[in-house]
């Protein structure tokens, strides 16, 4: 009944799992076929609703992992005590149907309207998911806006989209810091994101940069505070927090 939907109203609809791809030992990407999908912006969410046989309903919000114009993808990390993520990462099969609604949100979105501003992306763990949408979108529209992604992960094997991030495109720099385990001969950064590391990686304030920070709550608070300390105006820092669990550090 898409034709009769009230504009702005969110409607639950049935999506079909087209394919599933492991990203790391605890993370996988789900490609969804969502009939009549209205299209999304880079950085937006969708909600997933699961209903148990006894009628118990659980809803969760996930960042969309694909660029505008691409099929809908979400990348989900299994949380040990989660209600929804264990099902999505272990039980769900190709051809299964789940309920979704979206796109959702408008705050944590990059849309190239500010083509003069270099962009700093700071990800903790699966906080990288909306940035994959943003980076793919940047590539798709042929944007020349300079981007830097600072990505904090526990170890190299916990890095999501590693193969893709090895070729992020012209004008995009990807900088890793590994918090728990570094491969032998690792020449990148180690340990958590510190004000010193941000000072090294972040665009100079004089370039009027725009920063996006996504990850566990404590990670986002630390990074956002450090960016303010080095002179980023608070209204140039967009933040998104997903709580306490996950493989950040």
């Amino acid at each position, binding site marked *: 009944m898409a034709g009769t939907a009230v504009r*702005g109203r*969110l409607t639950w609809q049935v999506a079909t799992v087209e394919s599933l791809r492991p990203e790391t030992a605890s993370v996988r990407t789900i490609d969804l076929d969502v009939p009549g999908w209205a299209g999304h912006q880079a950085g937006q969410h969708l909600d997933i609703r699961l209903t148990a046989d006894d009628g118990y309903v659980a809803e969760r919000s996930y960042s969309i992992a694909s660029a505008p114009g691409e099929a809908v993808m979400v990348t989900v990390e299994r949380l040990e005590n989660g209600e929804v993520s264990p099902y999505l990462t272990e039980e769900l099969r190709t051809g299964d149907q789940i309920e979704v609604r979206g796109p*959702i*949100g*408008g*705050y944590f979105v990059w849309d190239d309207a500010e083509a003069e501003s270099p962009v700093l992306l700071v990800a903790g763990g699966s906080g990288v998911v909306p940035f994959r949408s943003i980076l793919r979108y940047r590539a798709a529209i042929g944007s020349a806006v300079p981007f830097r992604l600072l990505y904090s992960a526990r170890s190299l094997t916990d890095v999501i989209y590693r193969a893709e991030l090895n070729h992020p495109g012209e004008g995009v720099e990807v900088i890793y810091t590994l918090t728990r385990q570094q491969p032998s001969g690792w020449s990148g950064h180690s340990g958590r994101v510190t004000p010193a590391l941000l000072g090294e990686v972040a665009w100079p304030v004089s370039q009027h940069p725009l920063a996006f920070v996504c990850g566990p*709550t404590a990670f986002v608070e630390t990074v956002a505070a450090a960016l303010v300390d080095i002179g980023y105006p608070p209204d140039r820092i967009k*933040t998104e927090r997903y*709580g*306490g669990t996950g493989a950040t550090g």
Partner: protein
Amino acid sequence: MTAFDETQLDDSTLDGNAIGGQLQEVFGTEMTTAVGTCATCGATAQLAETLVYLSAMGTVVRCRTCTAILLVVIKRGEVNCVDMQGMAALEPA
């Protein structure tokens, strides 16, 4: 007891991005970019920037500046019960 005593910024603290769908369900439009004014301290912020606590009881939205409650949403069946006495103003973007 003030709001400060009972509020902790811990791992269960989310932000308004996490309830974009719920807010859109309640208000009928995109609300994470809507600007709310705290009735307690007068601070203004986009709803995406607020402190959000989710529980089986419902959703509690607090002011990031003074931690006072801005908004409570409790769902009973298909009906959302919304208390927004904590906001002096709310302007969709």
